[in-house]
């Protein structure tokens, strides 16, 4: 059903994948399951946060914010209830890793959330799962029930006197709910629109209470960091981007798949050695290294590391770990249109630069893709993208502007060629109206 593993992988988060019935608590406990929680309880909250800081773990949902620092922002002694929320609303195009983690090892996630609950002196957590991942909701509910039976959730956990309840919450189809404040609105039963920040969820999150919100993979990493120590994790990446991450490679490679790789991996290595390289006779055209929101890279820009800082330095981002590879057969104009169709569909309509900007970008790119525009339209796309950037409530507007702006800038020639060809009626029929 999924891709076979690669011999180049470093299996930390995926270490229990392939174990028979790996989703059950028996399999988990037979492979050090919940040892991290026990260790966290013995260490105490301050030591847990310091350990996560030392691991150089950065948020795996997309923003790459240092997880230990995020944890230190939560007012643990606040008299208000503290909530732990897990973002399992995975929906960034190019990204399909959280699904694998939950399917294969739900207890690693539950353990990570429980460690957070203990650390934050919290009594309640939620896992927000996108509506399309219904089967994962059932897997999680079964796993949570098992954890209750083993006194790893519920009342007086492991004799500590600490109580923690964990629930699964279903979304209903909205990319915007992956944005943390929109997710919290959705979890409160509202439309998934973002909130003005500050205040941040750390102090005013779910029900206006202190809330720790992390991605599935981040919580799973915490489990292993606490169990095996920060150094064991950090050593797999550069100083400020510790550990491994589940890299999702898709598009025009011979072995697309999800592979757990050290953050010290380079993009050429991932494409050629792990992903099996391009198809025979094909050449590289472009790569989006961090999901559909990331600025596109030209082949000559691809000699880069896949850690957060290296990709930022290259003018793009590591994002959610979705690496989309395009070879010379890809129609970049149709590709740009498909990206903007997505953001236009998913824009929540809360703020005007995003709502109107994505709509206008879609209209112009549709025209260009049909060969009905002029080169002035290409300039207009770049201008619109520039004017959206940084002017929206949340990052969705940026996420639409980034790739689009970078594509028209770096592939202007492709737009010219397509326009000229269509206008001369020489374009092969299959290149028109795709996307």
């Amino acid at each position, binding site marked *: 059903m999924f891709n076979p593993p690669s011999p180049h992988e470093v299996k930390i988060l995926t270490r229990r994948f392939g174990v028979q019935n790996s989703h059950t608590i028996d399999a988990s406990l037979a492979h050090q399951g919940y040892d991290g929680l026990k260790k966290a309880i013995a260490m105490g909250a301050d030591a847990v946060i310091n350990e996560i800081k030392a691991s150089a773990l950065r948020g795996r949902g997309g923003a790459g914010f240092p997880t230990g620092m995020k944890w230190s922002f939560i007012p643990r002694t606040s008299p208000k209830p503290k909530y732990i929320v897990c973002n399992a609303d995975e929906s960034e195009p190019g990204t399909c890793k959280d699904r694998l983690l939950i399917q294969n090892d739900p207890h690693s996630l539950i353990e990570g959330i429980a460690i957070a609950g203990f650390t934050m002196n919290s009594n309640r957590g939620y896992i927000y799962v996108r509506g399309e991942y219904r089967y994962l909701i059932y897997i999680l509910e079964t796993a949570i029930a098992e954890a209750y039976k083993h006194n790893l959730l519920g009342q007086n956990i492991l004799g500590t006197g600490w109580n923690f309840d964990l*629930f699964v919450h279903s979304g209903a189809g909205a990319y915007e709910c992956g944005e943390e404040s929109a997710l919290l609105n959705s979890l409160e039963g509202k439309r998934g629109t973002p909130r003005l920040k500050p205040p941040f969820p750390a102090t005013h999150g779910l029900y206006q209470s202190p809330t720790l919100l992390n991605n599935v993979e981040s919580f799973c990493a915490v489990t292993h960091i606490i169990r095996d120590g920060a150094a064991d994790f950090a050593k797999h990446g550069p100083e400020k981007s510790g550990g491994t991450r589940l890299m999702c490679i*898709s598009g025009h490679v011979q072995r697309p798949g999800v592979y757990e790789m050290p953050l010290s991996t380079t993009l050429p290595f991932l494409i050629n050695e792990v992903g099996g390289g391009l198809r025979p006779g094909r050449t590289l055209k472009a790569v989006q290294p961090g999901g*559909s929101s990331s600025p596109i890279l030209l082949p000559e820009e691809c000699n880069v590391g896949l850690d957060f800082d290296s990709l930022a330095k290259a003018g793009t981002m590591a994002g959610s770990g979705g690496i989309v590879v395009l070879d010379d057969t890809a129609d970049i104009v149709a590709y740009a249109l498909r990206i903007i169709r997505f953001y236009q569909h998913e824009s929540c309509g809360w703020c005007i630069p995003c709502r109107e900007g994505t709509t206008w970008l879609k209209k112009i790119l549709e025209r260009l893709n049909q060969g009905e525009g002029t080169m002035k339209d290409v300039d207009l796309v770049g201008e619109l993208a520039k004017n959206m950037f940084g002017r929206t409530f949340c990052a969705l507007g940026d996420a639409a502007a980034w790739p689009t702006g970078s594509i028209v800038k770096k592939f202007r020639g492709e737009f010219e060629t397509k326009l000229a060809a269509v206008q001369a009626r020489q374009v092969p029929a299959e290149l028109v109206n795709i996307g």
Partner: protein
Amino acid sequence: MSIALSAATEARWQKILDAYPEGRKRSAVIPMLIFAQDETGIITRELMEEIARRAEVDYLQVEEVVGFYSMLRKQPLGKYHVQVCTNISCMLAGGMELWHHACESLHLKNKQTSADGLISIEEVECMGACSWAPAVEVNYDFHHHVTPERFDEIILELKGKG
């Protein structure tokens, strides 16, 4: 109550309502809607009114979320809702051609349902199967690496199940 739901859905609703703190039942609205829709196939005014009553919110607070979330619907779809992803990773792996094949072979357009009510199709955004593209989700069941031939087989299987 004005609408009758199965015992399983009633039990699910109770589980959902119990998952939120005192005074926070509004949180239950979206999960209640989607689990009820699985049974009813469609969100009616009566269903929204019932959820408003149970979750102790205004009717409009239910109505406004139904209009926001793409999986919640007021128009019925087929017993088997076949969702074809054409987003970037699927597109590069033939997802767009697969979508066109779906429309042509079933003689349906986006969000249309077959005359017998069995099958509906929809072009959807990323479903989280990018590395095993192109992907199709039938209701909540994933299918990976779907070729046009495999698509036809899936449809035949659905028709066989009825």
